[in-house]
């Protein structure tokens, strides 16, 4: 730090939502040319603080200085004029517009009120070029609704880049990105930093923070509790600053559980799936690995009867019709879906209802609900999962991401499922909650459930899985068991299969990291791949 004023100075920021005090005097100071971590547990106010700076939240009280000048930021447009751009945790893309239209949205070049398509393309091109390595085969004229969540996230980042901001806020912008995509984003962030941009970086992935950030501000319960230079701080210290003492979940792989086979799927196809075979035992945690978007989410949805798919599925030896989530749930299958906002929670409804909705039948008589039993059940989950809530009657939308995610878990635990399907269950969840969720997963398995888990984080698979199936283009292509499951092997497996498919023969001999199951895949594997 020099004597010159920092580029960003926020202090005494207060914001309350009804009874919830999201920020109580939070502060933050960041210089140009630094990547500044904004850390804290779920619900500590990181997003809210970012939004105050980006103009989309009106603070109750705040002092904001940019480069020494006190400013008021009344709207996102005002923020943009001051050089602030933000990538929100909640995507702000318009699904019906194309990638190109979304990139220039709000800053469309126009003459006399008429859009200039050429100028727009000229502006969007460098950004698209820059993101191309991570975006893959995405075209500027494609509606963003057709993109995967990861690709959409990248477009969102592109939108911010296009504005060439002085101050860039990335609020969990990497949460739905895979390792290779994250690397591209990091490269870009470093370039920006070197050009003097201040980057506020919010993430729950410790490794990302240690790798990228220069300094960090730590929030707890809406207050700034520490500011630290990353150089002199160990990850453990960071965790302690954020959430106090967390008992890390240690990986404990023994033998593959020897329980009986609980779940069998044969020839599962449809959508992105091209013939999946799998078998999982009671008490086993099976991970789904590979590059992102190779059919992992689709597989889970198909097993849950939530998408149209063909194939044979058996639970405990009995065939299951893949008709609807309802039939799947009736057979003891549960799904914690990937998109909490639209698939996991009923935002305006009370926490109690969100917990109860999947297991209503267990507490009703002739369709009439017993209010008392409903309450007891909900309370038991809040306690068992240590969910932090105001009251059971509060809407679930008032919870922080991690706590909302625990409610989604709790909803299914109440059904006492035999097969638990988890789609990226710790996305956006803080370290403390993450450890708790891992413990829940292990506990479910120990109690005899079969768990199938997809994750965008390799470390997560390493921590919880007994076995990992590596997917590529909708089929299982490799399998890692027990001690074979390491981050390195996972990465290698994904890459080698990927490259093997794209450019056969380029695969170096002896780099066989996992038993590939290419030969067992059905013949139609290549059908439809250009």
């Amino acid at each position, binding site marked *: 730090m020099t004597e010159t004023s920092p580029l960003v100075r926020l202090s005494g920021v207060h914001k309350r939502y009804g009874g919830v005090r999201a920020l109580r005097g939070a502060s933050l100071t960041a210089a140009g040319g630094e990547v500044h971590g904004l850390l804290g547990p779920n619900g500590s106010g990181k997003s809210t603080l970012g939004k105050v700076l980006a103009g*989309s939240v009106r603070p109750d009280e705040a002092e904001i200085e940019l480069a020494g000048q006190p400013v008021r930021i009344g709207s996102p447009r005002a923020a943009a004029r001051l050089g602030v751009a933000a990538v929100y945790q909640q995507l702000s893309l318009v699904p019906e517009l194309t990638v190109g239209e979304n990139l220039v949205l709000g800053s469309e070049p126009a003459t006399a009120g008429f859009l200039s398509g050429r100028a727009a393309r000229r502006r969007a091109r460098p950004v698209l070029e820059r993101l191309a390595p991570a975006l893959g085969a995405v075209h*500027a004229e494609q509606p963003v609704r057709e993109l995967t969540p990861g690709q959409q996230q990248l477009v969102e980042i592109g939108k911010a880049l296009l504005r060439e901001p002085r101050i860039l806020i990335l609020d969990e912008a990497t949460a739905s990105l895979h390792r290779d995509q994250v690397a591209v984003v990091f490269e870009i962030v470093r370039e920006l930093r070197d050009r003097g941009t201040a980057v506020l970086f919010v993430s729950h992935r410790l490794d990302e923070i240690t790798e990228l950030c220069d300094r960090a501000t730590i929030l707890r319960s809406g207050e700034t509790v520490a500011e630290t230079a990353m150089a002199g701080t160990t990850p453990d210290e960071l965790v302690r600053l954020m959430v106090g003492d967390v008992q890390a979940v240690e990986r404990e792989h023994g033998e593959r559980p020897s329980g009986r086979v609980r779940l069998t799927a044969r020839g599962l196809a449809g959508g992105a799936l091209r013939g999946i075979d799998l078998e999982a035992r009671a008490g086993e945690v099976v991970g789904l690995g590979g590059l992102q978007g190779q059919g992992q989410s689709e597989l889970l949805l198909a097993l849950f009867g939530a998408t149209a798919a063909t194939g044979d599925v058996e639970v405990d030896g009995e065939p299951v019709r893949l008709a609807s989530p309802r039939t799947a749930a009736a057979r003891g299958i549960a799904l914690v879906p990937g998109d909490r906002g639209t698939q996991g929670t009923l935002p305006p409804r009370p926490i109690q209802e969100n917990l109860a909705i999947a297991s209503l039948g267990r507490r009703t008589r002739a369709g009439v609900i017993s209010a008392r039993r409903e309450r007891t059940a909900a309370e038991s989950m809040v306690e068992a999962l240590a969910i932090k809530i105001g009251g059971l009657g509060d809407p679930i939308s008032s919870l922080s991401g991690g706590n909302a995610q625990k409610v989604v878990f709790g909803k299914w635990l109440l059904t006492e499922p035999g097969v638990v399907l988890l789609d990226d269950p710790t996305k956006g969840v803080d370290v403390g909650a993450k450890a708790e969720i891992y413990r829940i997963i292990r506990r479910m398995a120990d109690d005899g459930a079969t768990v199938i888990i997809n994750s965008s984080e390799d470390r997560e698979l390493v921590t919880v899985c007994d076995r990992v199936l590596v997917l590529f283009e909708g089929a299982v292509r490799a399998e890692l068991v027990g001690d074979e499951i390491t981050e390195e092997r996972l990465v290698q497996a994904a890459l080698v299969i990927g490259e093997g498919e794209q450019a056969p023969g380029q695969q170096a001999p002896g780099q066989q990291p996992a038993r590939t199951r290419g030969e067992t895949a059905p013949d139609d594997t290549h059908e439809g791949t250009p």
Partner: protein
Amino acid sequence: MTQTPTVAAIEERRPLTERLGRVRVASWATAALLIVAVVAAVALQPNLLSPYGVASTFATFLPLVLVAVAQAIVVIGGGLDLSAGAIVALSSVVAVQVMQGEAGSVPLGFLTAIGVGLACGIVNGLVVSRLRLQPLIATFATASVFSGLALLVLPSPGGTVPAIITGTFRQAVGGVPVSVLLVVAVAAGWLVVRHLRIMRHIRATGGGPAAAFASLVPVAGAQLASYAICGVICGLAGLAVLGNSGSGDPFIGGDLALNSVAAVVVGGIALRGGIGSPIGAIAGAITLSLASTILFALSLPTSWRALAAGLVVILALALSALGAPRRQR
């Protein structure tokens, strides 16, 4: 990296064939319905192809075509305007009162109708964007206000429209009836308007208000603009109504609002906003109007005709809904 950067991401425009392939199924459904309706109507009622048949048919459709385009713009912007019919009535009666049947005041009448439409549209826009009232119920309420005012301006039907307006409606230029030219002009007008930046903002607002707001789109302004444009077009529809009716009536256009919503949906525009084109709404309006001509020409027993008409509307809606994209991921 595993996935090499593809040129696709950088390439500027896709080949035309591919872009045509992207035309939404809904558009095909709308077009197919229109063609079926035209063929059936002409087959059953060959007189429709006579010069009078063509001219009068298009003249009849023009008010609904205009209101459907107006409604389409609001719907694309995520709103709904149940007051469209009332705006048509109010602007037409004010124009009649201003013109008093004199040819000399026709320009003034035009400006008045458009001005009244604009004013009503701005009221709607303010109520929806500033007071943040739910559009359906808010425009139901403003419709009441506009209807009351129409009754104040013209307490009982009457007044004459200058002959130049009704006359022009029945003219042909180079063999093409003016009413046909006007419908074509509406479509052409849209082809210009759609390139306005505000239209992009309206579409973005309809596609996702929160996302649009966070993306620096002036959402309130876009909503206001969509209703204002709607109002102006309804003002024009008021003039078209005068061309057809030759006099003022404060109750005119009672069915226009709901019919325009049906036309918009048949035209492949999603009521949730963000999707579709007013061109589809024009097709939808013509399809639905032709449907009643067809039912008439089929000479069903009268007591069954209303039932059949309702079923045909549902059928058309079902067909256009089949083409609509599923919103499921």
